């Protein structure tokens, strides 16, 4: 996983973060481990509520009550960020590890000028000499392609469009020359053309400055455009990890496979319906026993209800936590021609929804009855 790269700048080991609510302990992140090499681009993918953002916030020690990191270590250049003093952690936040957020509309303080906010980000740390702060602020805005930067440093956030604000956020993030930039859904609030520009910008910055990027998103298309490696999360756990090619060409976890199938495609049959993943992510207070994906998995086996699979190698640097894996699903369950992806559809194991009503998964006119496929 770290082949051809230098030592990892960031190692997350067995990270578990929980929120202690009145209803019980919500295990938002469970035993998550991954490495980030210098200059690498890593994507963390999953549905809403699968623990992507909490993982990122845990890295920077920003999980607030009632949440708490309950186990694990986060090694930044060998130092455990969970056990350093507050001032050191503050210097690392925004200094060595910067983070940009989903909604650029609300991530800037509305009452301060753009330039002042960028300068403030530098003044919070000792990495940039005070004399250089002002000219560097302007340079950064030019670097992220804010047109007419010299005039616009004096504008307020509401005078900027969403895409321009995200550029400002990126400029702020880069202001202290961080080694890692964590981008939490950086393009979600932006329209598609602006998304592409922001991704291009992140790609250029990664290439030119060598900044490692952790990109958190639910959008696999965004990941494909930027990341070399992908971590797929489901219900607070990593279910699959591999290179972008591996994940996209031969996903091994049924969840990853389903996610990819739910992507809209330009080259798809015009009348083909989008396939959604049936059901909802599990309750994180009382998750189902066994594999957390079993209530929604079309390929589940009896074993999936009782035993929780560990991450197991399925290829070179490619791991997945699944008892079936898609190799077997294709070989034995006819995954290639599967139309109905309802729970247990391919294996017929303990159907939760009896006689499969034509659901949103699209049985329109193809006439393929999924129940007649071979059983696992």
């Amino acid at each position: 996983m770290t082949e051809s790269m230098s030592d990892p700048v960031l190692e997350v080991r067995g990270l578990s973060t929980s929120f202690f609510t009145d209803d019980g302990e919500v295990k938002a992140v469970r035993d998550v481990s991954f490495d980030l090499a210098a200059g690498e681009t890593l994507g963390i993918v999953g549905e809403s509520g699968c623990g992507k953002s909490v993982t990122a916030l845990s890295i920077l020690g920003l999980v607030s009550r009632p949440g708490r990191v309950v186990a694990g270590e986060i090694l930044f250049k060998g130092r455990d960020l969970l056990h350093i003093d507050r001032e050191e952690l503050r210097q690392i936040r925004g200094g060595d590890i910067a983070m940009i957020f989903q909604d650029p509309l609300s991530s800037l303080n509305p009452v301060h000028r753009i330039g002042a906010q960028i300068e403030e980000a530098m003044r919070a740390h000792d990495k940039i000499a005070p004399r250089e702060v002002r000219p560097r602020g302007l340079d950064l805005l030019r670097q992220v392609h804010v047109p007419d930067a010299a005039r616009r440093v004096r504008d307020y956030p509401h005078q900027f469009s969403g895409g321009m604000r995200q550029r400002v956020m990126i400029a702020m993030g880069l202001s202290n020359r961080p080694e890692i930039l964590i981008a939490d859904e950086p393009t979600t609030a932006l329209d598609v053309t602006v998304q592409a520009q922001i991704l291009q910008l992140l790609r250029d910055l990664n290439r030119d400055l060598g900044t490692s990027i952790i990109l958190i998103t639910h959008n696999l298309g965004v990941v494909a455009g930027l990341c070399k490696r992908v971590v797929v999360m489901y219900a607070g756990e990593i279910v699959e990890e591999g290179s972008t090619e591996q994940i996209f060409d031969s996903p091994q976890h049924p969840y990853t496979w389903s996610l990819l199938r739910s992507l809209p495609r330009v080259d798809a049959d015009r009348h083909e319906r989008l396939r959604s993943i049936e059901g909802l992510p599990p309750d994180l207070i009382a998750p189902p026993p066994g594999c957390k994906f079993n209530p929604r998995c079309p390929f589940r086996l009896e074993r999936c209800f009782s035993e929780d699979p560990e991450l197991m190698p399925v290829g070179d640097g490619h791991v997945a936590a699944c008892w079936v894996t898609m190799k077997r699903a294709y070989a034995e369950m006819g995954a290639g021609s599967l139309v109905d992806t309802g729970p247990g559809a391919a294996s017929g194991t303990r159907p939760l929804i009896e006689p499969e009503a034509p659901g949103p998964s699209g049985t329109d006119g193809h006439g393929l009855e999924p129940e007649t496929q071979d059983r696992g």
Partner: protein
Amino acid sequence: MAGPTTPWLVEYEGGTLARQQVGLWRDGLRRLRRNRLALAAVIYLGLLACVCVVSLFWTPYNPNLVGACPTYALPGTPGHPLGCDDLGRDLLSRLMVGSQVSLAVGLITAAIVVVLGVSVGLLIGYVRGVVDAAFALVINVFYGVPPLMIAIVLYVLLGPGLINIIIAIAASSWMDMARLVRGQTMSIREREFIEAARAGGARTGKILFGHIFPNALGPIIVQTTYVVPAAILTSAFFSFLGFGVPAPQADWGGMASEGFSPLLAGFDPYILLWPAIALSVTLLAFNFFGDGLRDAFDPRQRR
């Protein structure tokens, strides 16, 4: 677009197509100007401030001079447009000097309330938890103590004086400001730019005073304009009861008190009337000004 030599100015002249942007302050002031009542209030308060400053150096007569004019001289007596009181002191002079006490109490109390209330409110709103619970208790205790009691205790311990009045009023009115700022802080701290600032490594002090405070400024200003008239009224009330500034220093509450017995004795009511009018109009002006500010800075009420 002009050359890059003097970036701020030259590029501005490059001819922008954007509409002239109006900042919060200018927009607020514009709204305030359109509000006639608030404008009248501002003008009155400006005049009052001038009178107050002038009275520090000059009054028609020495306000404390007994026998400056005939006792109970009626308003309109030559040289004494407002008449004289039971000791023959010039009422115009006393009324002018009385504005000093009112404005001093109002403004200094407001300053103390703002500093104390904002600091405490920001802190407990941001830290929450045990600190918040502890301060909630303290605040509730303060709510239970009537300002008059504090004033009387200070009067007994320290003797009469302006400072004691200010302390008594401030001690009994800072909690409202603290509560307001606490609530504002609790809502602003959840906004994404605060999290972004924390992720950027901003220091806690910077987050409190650089990020949260400016965003809560509108409500704080408006609350302050309500503190001022309340403090003036309370201090006048203290003076009326005899716990105010020591005689012979003139203040409007005390003057009203002095005019009360002549009224009962059957003399004309004007000795009571002048300070009462001054007090009422001043309070009204502060309230109109406060309302105007609220309308100007509250985005939900914008038309």
